[in-house]
């Protein structure tokens, strides 16, 4: 007997202005192209734990189309993401979504070559 498919719950809740609350767990962002090709710039993107006085970089699992990091309850993170837009930054459009729940977070175009998000768990 097969199990009926269930929609995965989203961890992130958009508060506006790049501020998000999050449930603990692995947050995975993905890029879905609308026009052209947009990818994560893994070398220049990072996640910082800014809960304490000193910001600390945390591990990130990054590929061209996926960007994941683990959120721990009680922590606040600054997510710095750079996008590479091709073949021209003025032609490419993509949606930044949270997976696997497929929640659209932002449209990535020539006014958003990078974003800085604050995620609080």
């Amino acid at each position, binding site marked *: 007997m097969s199990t009926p498919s269930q929609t995965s719950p989203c961890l992130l809740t958009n508060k506006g202005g790049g*501020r998000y609350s999050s449930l603990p767990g692995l947050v995975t962002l993905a890029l879905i192209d609308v026009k052209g090709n947009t990818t994560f710039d893994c070398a220049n*993107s990072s996640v910082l734990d800014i809960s304490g006085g000193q910001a600390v970089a945390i591990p990130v699992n990054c590929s061209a189309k996926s960007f994941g990091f683990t959120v721990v309850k009680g922590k606040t993170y600054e997510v710095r993401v750079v996008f590479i837009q091709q073949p021209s930054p*003025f032609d490419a459009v993509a949606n930044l979504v949270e997976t696997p729940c497929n929640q659209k977070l932002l449209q990535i175009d020539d*006014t*958003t070559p990078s974003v800085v998000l604050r995620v609080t768990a």
Partner: protein
Amino acid sequence: MSSFLGCLVGAASTANAQAPLPGSQSVSEAGATKTSNSGVVNTYFGSVTKSPPKACHARFLTEAKDAISRKSPIPLIDFLSFGTDAPCATYLLLSSNQFQAMRTSLQGKTIQAVEQDIERRAAKEVKAIAQQSGSSSGTGGSTNLTSKGLTAKVLSIASEYGALTQSVSNQTTTVQGSVAGIPLVLMDKGYLAECSTRILSVTPCFSHGVMDQLSRISYSVSFATTPSVGTVTGTATGAASGTAQQVTVKTSDHSVNQFSFKWVAIRGIVSDTAMAKTAAAISKTGTGKALVDAQAKLVALENDSNNPKAVAWETNFAQQLLAEIQSGGNSSAAIESVFNKWREAGTAMASAFGLPENIDQASTGPSVPDSVSGAVELAHAYTQYLGAEEDQGLSAIIAQPPILSFEYDDNRSSSQPSDSVFRAIYQQKWTPLTLTVNGALSIYNSGQSAVPGAGRLRDAQFATEAAHSFALNTPLSSSLGVTLSGAFYYQYQSSPAILNVTPGAPVDGVTFTGLPSTAAQVYGKTGNIAIGQLKLSVGSGSSVTVPLSVTYSNRTELITSPTWKAQVGVSYDFDSLFSGNK
């Protein structure tokens, strides 16, 4: 069979990083942006453009429609935030009265002085790009059997000797590059913006479409650099005065012996492999890191727990904007009206960031508030990053086979009648093999009635080259690029090749026997010229390339006997000097 050792001097061609912790290292200190913070502020402390960037208008329409459909102000809050729409928020802050007041008074600098400053810096950048230091390095030019569809992006300077089809060769220096080369480098440095995203009025702008078209056009100018090229003749005038004699001197020297233009008519679709390669090149420029670091500084100010006004202003203003759109029936006119309200909100935004509306130099002193210096720095970083993407992206597009180019050459050799060559160039690539095919017609620019059998059509040409690229592992280099190519060239000489001679002043390198003293032109036989060449280019794909070649021809334009030529040289691709790669 004669042998010849010429010098072919070059062929101009073609995880997670640990982010710096906030406050631990500035962008300028990180090295990604060479200009210091104060330098950026001083140079770019100009006014914003009169109208918001078109990209912001387009983005606002998108966010407004999203807010309407979701019945939520969140998309509009995103539009107002430095974290999620940095350039539009930057424009708004820099359009504030507070910024205008400081702009005219900061350090006594007027906007005119700032504009002169940026012009000086841009001119310095151009000078750094275009000025050659030391001796020229070379390119193939006429020592190549085929023409390629592309030239160096910015600039290449080449010196060559040893023409393959002609019997007389002079030392020639060739300067070539793409028309878009220098604008792209200025864009890459942040001194030139794309018009739809321009924030600061002192930054000149080109549209993406113009840059796209300019990148298709390249130029080439060749100069004869052999001291003996051309002839200088003196004729005695008047009577001699003792051992002195007045003369009238004439010269047949041509300072420019060829210029040409090339236009890429058709180019291929950028492959996934090329996309990945270009993405790596963009990432390596470091401009993305400079951008996100500058953005993070503003986000820190925006979310400063000691000043909750900024976040409160974003939320309240977004709610107000959505309410007005809804009260206008969610119509396009209502959205446009609300957009105009947004563009006038800079002063309120600056107040929320702690800048009082009556701020002036007296109240700020010589220091610049962090929000202002941060916004100016962010505007510059944004322009520079988009410029780097445009630069690398257009380079990838233009170099994507199949490429069909058309070339016009105007040959103005001092020793031959001038002629024009119309050439079509096709290049296709099946990795690792590249095929190049040329077809060309050459016509004399003027009738050659003095030469029997000479018409306006000088010759017809066909050439093809197959090149195989591979890598070698050597003790000196883990991956040394090597290209092995074979080329065939055919020329049907329908009109005789003509050499202009001056009696008593023979052409350099040619000795005539039995030539009548009154002869002003000599000419060869018509017929078929066939040339084959094998070439090994060591270091291909890198900045330094060493081409080695052996060429055989059944005849040249004037000499009817077979000829062997061996050539070796060194080339340097200047483009690497101007790329953003560190």
